[in-house]
């Protein structure tokens, strides 16, 4: 596989920009492709773990896409899932060790969900659908795009759940004490697991009302 492309495209040609832009909206991994939902819901009670998780997944998707795309011509089709899992698991071990070293408290909060990045469907989905058939650079962009599409949903969820469930953001108090004295109280439901599901349902609802082409037929 030669790295020199026959027809040279600039690094950010319209086709490549689309790879980043589409996953943010009309091909969003969570709300449209239905990938990687497990972790999106479980780690978003607070903004900080949600942000760390989003960053980790983006890094892993982008790197895994590049590695698999480099290896794509050498992987025997029959064992490709195992090869993909091994590459991803190695990257996730790296991320896990980095998190443990630098943000130990967040890594404790995320508990098993860092490990679960391995089976995060975004990874397998993108590796299968994109990296196996494309060159490293577009694969990298696709990984970044999907990582960001995943990230903004996570951060939005984390933002709303922490702000209205706890009255804080990133651990700092946002809603002042005087509000509580005047009778305001936190919405305890938002901290609980079911609220995450209902919030994602609402995001999907809003997105599809704005973009009618995404509406499902039965």
């Amino acid at each position, binding site marked *: 596989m030669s790295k020199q492309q026959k027809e040279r495209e600039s690094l950010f040609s319209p086709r490549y920009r689309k790879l980043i832009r589409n996953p943010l909206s009309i091909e969003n991994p969570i709300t449209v492709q239905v990938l990687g939902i497990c*972790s999106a*819901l479980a780690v978003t009670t607070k903004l900080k773990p949600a942000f760390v998780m989003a960053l980790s997944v983006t890094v892993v998707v982008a790197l895994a896409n590049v590695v698999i795309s480099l290896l794509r011509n050498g992987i025997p089709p029959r064992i490709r899932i195992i090869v993909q899992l091994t590459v991803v698991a190695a990257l996730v071990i790296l991320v896990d060790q980095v998190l443990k070293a630098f943000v130990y408290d967040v890594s404790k909060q995320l508990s098993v969900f860092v490990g*679960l990045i391995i*089976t995060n*469907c975004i990874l397998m989905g993108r590796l299968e659908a994109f990296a196996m058939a494309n060159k490293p650079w577009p694969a990298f962009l696709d990984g970044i795009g999907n990582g960001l599409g995943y990230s903004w949903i996570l951060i939005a969820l984390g933002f709303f759940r922490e702000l209205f469930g706890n009255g804080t953001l990133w651990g700092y108090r946002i809603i002042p004490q005087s509000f509580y004295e005047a009778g305001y109280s936190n919405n305890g439901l938002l901290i609980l697991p*079911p609220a995450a599901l209902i919030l994602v349902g609402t995001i999907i609802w809003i997105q599809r009302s704005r973009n009618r082409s995404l509406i499902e037929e039965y």
Partner: protein
Amino acid sequence: MQESINIFIKSIFIDNMIFAYFLGMCSYLAVSKSVKTAVGLGIAVIFVQVITVPVNYLLNKYMLTPGALTWISPQLADVDLNFLSFIMFIAVIASIVQLVEMIIEKFSPALYNSLGIFLPLIAVNCAILGGSLFMQEWEFENFGQTVAFGLGSGIGWALAIIAIAAIREKIRYSAIPGPLRGLGISFILTGLMAIAFMSFLGIKL
């Protein structure tokens, strides 16, 4: 023994893989359009979960925890292979799924035909790897408890997917706002079911 039963009940209802931890949501949403396929996938998950969780428990106990290798030689007492656990677990899961697929194909072609496409998918179902990681994190005391946990969490997952599939079959006849159709309403339904399952909180034998 009582502790094992307690873990079993708890992992079905309280620590339900879907409603409390959202594990295996991808296949839960993708394969819940009809009850028949949901039952098939549910059974396959129970099957794989019951085998992988205890196997990974043994692997964890005799290979991965710090000092676990002393059964080979006392010199290995300070070897800590814990950082390898992700890759070991996923390798075990992928190979067991493959093995289960071959065994079912040989002994029950009818079951194989109905599960066929789902079996390979199970290797990347978060509920399976999640079960093994929770097993590692919650530090079960003995082998029996891990079997109870594997069985319970598998059944809990199957219960959830069969329930949502039944609801989705019925809801086809309801007038749902267009943008909410399909994925959106499934999320909200799952949320409502999760609220219902929270009423089991605090049950203890």
